[in-house]
């Protein structure tokens, strides 16, 4: 480790307001070289705003910001980059039409004679970077079609070639599978050992404790505390984040389990999933676990009729659900809440009430006309029931927090009065406090006799919420575990089982 005398980044008492909204009241962060520093906090705690100030996307209103001991005030991302700050955003920001190499060197290409871009030198440099990172990516291929994990590797290669002394990663693992996370962590550790300062933002505490040496907690735009990970615990950090002890993250209530609602038998789709059979009963929450890419969402989409399948059948309450027909599935009482809220679940630029009313629109209209008043009456009842925090039903869904958006999506589908709810990653990108509310809501719904199929990448969520856990691996169900049998080890074993056989 290098000398930890002088911190690489110091932010103190940083304030940033957007009009009347104060995003950051008193932000603080001190990161030393040769350290991986976790930044945690609920959504809306001001982490992203703080990162954007370091990146030069925003300018602080007041407060102190020094980089390697020098006071800085970035007005553009180019300046922070020049000063040695690299930021890897949650969504990789690559140019899909350009080659991998061009993506790495954009804006600072290697120049040959006459300021001509020296492509061979850039390709060689890119290959050297990938070799160092232990990955094999064709530097000449275009960035289009790369997995999120590969795109993040390219972002990291970019940061390394920048000789960045400060590397900030904003929820880099949100879309990664276990193996990919391990690889990312190995790279992060080697960068730390070179004496760079890393900041790691994550909602997953197991990762925070596995990777980071220090953790800073933020809440409601304020700096709360900084602790050594070795000297603290998940419970303590969560308590700091929410300002109270979250004693029960998974308020699972016992529900009486009734007759089978959904029966899936022998569902197959070439190259995606094979011979998938299961059932979900009334009042039951069935968790669908597995690694990213195991085919969980694909099964859900096929059941709902968004994607087609080759063979097998889906019945709901004894009625056969026609394939490839989501409208019929909705009519038969099925509801699907997709993984990507912003793109597939919500009309992001429409009002809350319009969103809630969207699926049942034809039922609401009187003689073919739909008025905002009718929409508002219907939506208001649902919004109140789910405690959607919004000043008005007319505001755009885009301006709401992730948790509230999720509630709006759930309200939208509950308005159809479904008997089966399929929910994909119910709490992705939602902060700890709201997570518990969403979990409580799901639990209540099951208690009222709704059958729920829940897909989740977060193991604690699956284990905490589900009455039964199905594990999918490479398109096949490799385990069906009861709540009592579902231990983390059992689920992970099933999720990786066929991988071991194949390799």
């Amino acid at each position, binding site marked *: 480790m290098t000398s930890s005398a002088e911190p690489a980044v110091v932010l103190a008492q940083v304030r940033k307001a957007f009009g009347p909204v104060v995003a950051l009241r008193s932000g603080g962060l001190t990161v030393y070289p040769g350290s991986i520093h976790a930044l945690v906090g609920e959504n809306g705690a001001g982490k992203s705003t703080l990162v954007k100030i370091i*990146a*030069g*996307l925003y300018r602080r209103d007041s407060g102190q910001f020094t980089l390697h001991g020098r006071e800085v005030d970035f007005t*553009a*991302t*180019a*300046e*922070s*980059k020049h000063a040695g700050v690299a*930021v890897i*955003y949650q969504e990789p*920001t*690559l*140019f*899909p*039409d*350009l080659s991998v190499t*061009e993506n790495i060197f*954009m*804006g*600072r*290409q290697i*120049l040959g004679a006459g*300021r*001509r*871009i020296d492509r061979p030198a850039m390709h060689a440099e890119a*290959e050297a970077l990938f070799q160092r990172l*232990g*990955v*094999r*990516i*064709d*530097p*000449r*291929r*275009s960035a*289009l*079609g*790369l*997995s999120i994990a*590969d795109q993040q*590797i390219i972002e990291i290669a970019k940061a390394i070639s920048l000789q960045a002394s400060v590397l900030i990663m904003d929820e880099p693992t949100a879309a990664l599978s276990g*193996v*990919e996370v391990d*690889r990312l962590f*190995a790279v992060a550790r080697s960068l730390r050992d070179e004496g760079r300062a890393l900041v790691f933002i994550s909602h997953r505490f197991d990762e925070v404790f596995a990777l980071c040496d220090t953790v800073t907690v933020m809440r409601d735009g304020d700096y709360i505390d900084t602790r050594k990970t070795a000297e603290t615990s998940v419970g303590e950090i969560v308590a700091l984040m929410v300002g109270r002890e979250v004693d029960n993250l998974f308020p699972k209530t016992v529900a009486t389990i009734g007759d089978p609602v959904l029966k899936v038998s022998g569902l197959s789709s070439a190259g995606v999933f094979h011979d998938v059979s299961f059932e979900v009963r009334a009042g039951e929450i069935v968790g669908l676990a597995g690694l990213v890419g195991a085919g969980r969402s694909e099964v859900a989409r096929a059941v709902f009729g968004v994607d087609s399948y080759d063979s097998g059948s889906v019945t709901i309450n004894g009625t056969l659900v026609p394939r490839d027909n989501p409208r019929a599935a909705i009519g038969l009482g099925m509801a699907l809440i997709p993984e990507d809220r912003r793109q597939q679940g919500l009309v992001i630029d429409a009002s809350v009430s319009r969103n809630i009313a969207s699926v049942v629109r034809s039922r609401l209209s009187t003689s073919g006309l739909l008025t905002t008043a009718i929409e508002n009456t219907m939506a208001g009842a649902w919004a109140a029931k789910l405690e959607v925090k919004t000043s008005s039903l007319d505001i755009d869904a885009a301006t709401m927090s992730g948790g509230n958006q999720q509630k709006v999506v759930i309200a939208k589908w509950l308005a159809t009065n479904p008997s089966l709810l399929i929910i994909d990653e119910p709490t992705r990108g939602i902060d700890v406090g709201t997570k518990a509310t969403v979990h409580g809501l799901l639990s209540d719904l099951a208690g009222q006799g709704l059958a729920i199929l829940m897909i989740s990448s977060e193991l604690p969520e699956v284990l905490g919420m589900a009455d039964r856990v199905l594990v999918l691996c490479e398109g096949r169900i490799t385990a069906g575990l009861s709540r009592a049998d579902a231990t983390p080890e059992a689920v992970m074993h099933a999720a990786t089982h066929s991988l071991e056989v194949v390799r």
Partner: protein
Amino acid sequence: MTQLLVAPSRMSTTQRVVTGLLHSREVAIVLVLLAVAAVATAKTSSFLFSANSWRDLLLTPSILILLAVGQAVVIITRNVDLSVGSVLALTAYLTGRLFIDNPGIPIVVVFVAGLAAGAVLGLVNGVIIGYGRVPALVITLGTLYIYRGVVLSWAGSDRINASDLPSGFLSLGTKSVASVPVLTIIAVAVLVVVAYYLHSNRGGRELYAIGSDPDAAVLYGLAVRRRVIGAFVLSGALAGLAGVLYTARYGTVSSGAGTGIELQAVAAAVIGGVAIFGGSGTVWGAAIGAVLLVTINRALPIAGIPDFWQRAVVGALIIGAIVLDRILAARRARKLIEARDDV
């Protein structure tokens, strides 16, 4: 680490260049162009084998090539410039007026004036789009009418005639050097310079990056606004140059000069493989697209196809090019994903 991602290409450099060429859009359009020429020549041998036909083949598309090159640069940044037809009319009329009002003015000065006037008009477009954050489609549609309105009120029913222009200037429009028309030489020279800039200069690559993902370009710290304004200035300047050459070529300029040519420029770029959503394509493709468009317009009457159907054919070509783009893009995306999964 055991996890393999995408294996590096094992092709040699020559292999890569050859396959790249074979798959390129430019080669495909050249083939279509040759086919059109072959069919037309088979019908009437004078299409290619007469005294004037070779010259016409090169001369007619020259002005459209200039506009298509400028248009391609703008479209690559995910914008569009619809005002070029009106800019052409303004600078064409300006050219005539300069010769009439300043007898004996050097031709070079007129060229510089045309370029500068076009650049200023392009700058107006670029500044409004860059600072107003308004879609280029709307702004340049507005300036299309405004610039045309300026020409209309300036020229009125007046027109520039060949007799008003010095013969040295007029001969530029028809003169050839080594059997290549001067206009074509100018267009190709511009094409080569712009193509080099786009391929091998940082600024050129940044134009592609901006068109590929404008938000990412901001996060990369690229000077997005400056580059976009630059693209519009270039497009305007090339339209200005085209205006000067228009006067030299046709000798007469009325206020209606170049009406509708902006759509031909867009069509040429799209047919030439410049994606309408930016980020890909080359000015070579746009230029060949321009040649194809003009050649088809000349070949169809020879083939005995009535006027209405000529337009329909051009329309079909544009739609065909876009549909082909979609299919190829989908195939390419699938292949790239396969290359990733193929571990």
